[in-house]
């Protein structure tokens, strides 16, 4: 009996230790990734990386200035397209809608959220690239914007719903119309949450590569306006990493460091905004 108890205790301690090992292994991956990127990327990054165009194939040097600007343009377009749909859609769901319509919209958003990013690329291709007959910044921005919609919509709705009803009733009791209540009371009360949602959606699409492959395509030169194909950081990382040139590999590491740094910083800022001073009491 005593032996059996000892055995059970040993098993308990052993298995619990193993779960700790699992946790440590899983989390340490993050630090491996960061470490490798800082190590390889840090040694390859230079001023040229931010200011020069890619060098012609076979020559060393050059940078990714066009890809950085391209990514910025794509993300700006995506936000202009995705955030309003998500934001106003969420206002409808949280403040106006009946439960049937809300269910349908939420279901559609969840479905869209689960669509693999490469399929989003196909959709943007057939909707924007085919009619214009060429790859463009516009198509890439559209694809990324599509991916921002469900994330923005679902979290914004959650945060709007978390605003206590007393606030709504108070404003209405003072005679404010519904839209005035929403614009001046409810949205300001939930703004931290909404900002976090938008930032997380932004960070999520900032690293997306697959939907850009056949929408924004790629470009070794500057791309003017919105109608031309454009380079972007994620696609550059992909093409440079699988190319056979040593110098391109270095630049892929540098681009990876810049991209990951940007995404992690946005993530951390977003979470900090949410956790500092919670203005919304969750009732």
């Amino acid at each position, binding site marked *: 009996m005593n032996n059996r108890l000892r055995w059970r205790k040993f098993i308990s301690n052993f*298995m619990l230790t193993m779960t700790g090992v699992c946790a440590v292994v899983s989390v340490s991956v*993050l630090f491996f990734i960061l470490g490798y990127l800082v190590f390889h990327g840090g040694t390859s990054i230079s001023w040229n990386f931010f200011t020069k165009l890619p060098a012609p194939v076979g020559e060393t040097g050059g940078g990714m200035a066009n890809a950085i600007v391209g990514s910025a343009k794509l993300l700006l377009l995506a936000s202009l397209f995705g955030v309003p749909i998500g934001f106003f859609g969420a206002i409808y769901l949280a403040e106006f809608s009946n439960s049937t319509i809300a269910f349908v*919209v939420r279901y559609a958003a969840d479905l869209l959220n689960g669509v*693999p990013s490469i399929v989003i690329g196909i959709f943007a291709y057939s909707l924007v690239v085919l009619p214009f007959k060429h790859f463009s910044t516009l198509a890439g921005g559209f694809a990324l914007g599509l991916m921002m919609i469900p994330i923005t919509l679902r979290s914004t709705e959650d945060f709007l719903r978390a605003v206590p009803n007393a606030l709504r009733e108070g404003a209405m009791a003072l005679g404010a119309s519904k839209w005035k209540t929403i614009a001046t009371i409810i949205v300001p009360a939930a703004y931290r949450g909404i900002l976090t949602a938008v930032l997380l959606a932004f960070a999520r699409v900032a690293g997306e590569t697959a939907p850009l492959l056949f929408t924004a395509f790629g470009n070794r030169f500057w791309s003017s306006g919105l109608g031309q194909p454009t380079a972007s950081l994620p696609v550059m990382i992909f093409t440079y990493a699988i190319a056979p040139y040593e110098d391109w590999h270095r630049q892929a590491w540098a681009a990876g460091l810049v*991209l990951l740094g940007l995404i992690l910083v946005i993530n951390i800022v977003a979470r900090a905004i949410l956790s500092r001073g919670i203005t919304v009491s969750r009732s």
Partner: protein
Amino acid sequence: MGSRSFLSRLREGDEIARMITFLFAASVVLITLLLVLELWQGSVLPRHKFGFNFFRTSVWDPIFEQFGALPFIYGTLVTAGVSLLIAVPLGIGAAIFLAELAPARVSDTLEFFIDLLAAVPSVIYGLLGVFIVVPLMRQYLQPALKHSLGFLPFFQGPAYGVGFLTAGIVLAIMVIPYIISVSREVLLSVPRDQREAALALGSTRWEATWKVVVPFARTGIFGSIFLALARALGETMAVTMVIGNTPTISASLFSPGYSIAAVIANEFTEATGDLYLQSLIELGLVLFILTFILNGLARLLIVATSQKGSGMGHA
């Protein structure tokens, strides 16, 4: 409210605000419907020409316009399967640690890192896959596996570095964060009395966890696994960079292969001819349907578990 006429509400702007926001909400549904429609109509030619043979044949020949998707489907399923074999035990183990053992502060800090890990873009995993994992596989892991388990059909053939196993390992690293966060949530929603009852009856901490808490959360944990599977099936960039991009069906996990998402990524811009392009779109449709089903199942299971937890809590 009811006594006010439609006109007075219109004047105050409520109806206008309602209509405008409705348009935005409706556009989400429209976009989703349009996506399904585009995929369906965009793949009309191969669906009519090949029918079900599209999924049964393995010749992928753009020149003679023969398209069979079997190697891609096989590669997608095998890599996703390998990734789950690795990610499920690791992820659930870590989730148990975070939910049951770690103090709240440690658990929240680790969860924060896990969330950051989930935010790392796929192309970065691909980059590390190409330059770190592939050489490691070629030089150390594959020879070691061949040496020790080479009698199994899974670990035979030359060690290229790239292939099903490598893609599976990279995928595993990518989906572990999803399994951990969702399983942790689900485990935390298990009512306290369940644990306490088990401990009071004399079970050890591990027995209480493994025989009472985990079974209680089982459906939700399965949900997290389905979610991870859906991610793994649709994952494109990292897989494309390490799977080897050769349409083969081989029992050996060392063999280079191809996945649905990878073939779309590689060949879509080069597809000449409608049948070729539409065959790729049909592959996209297959991927869409697979992830649609898995995500739906996952959501059902996760919701069912958290409701069970809150229901018990109130009782």
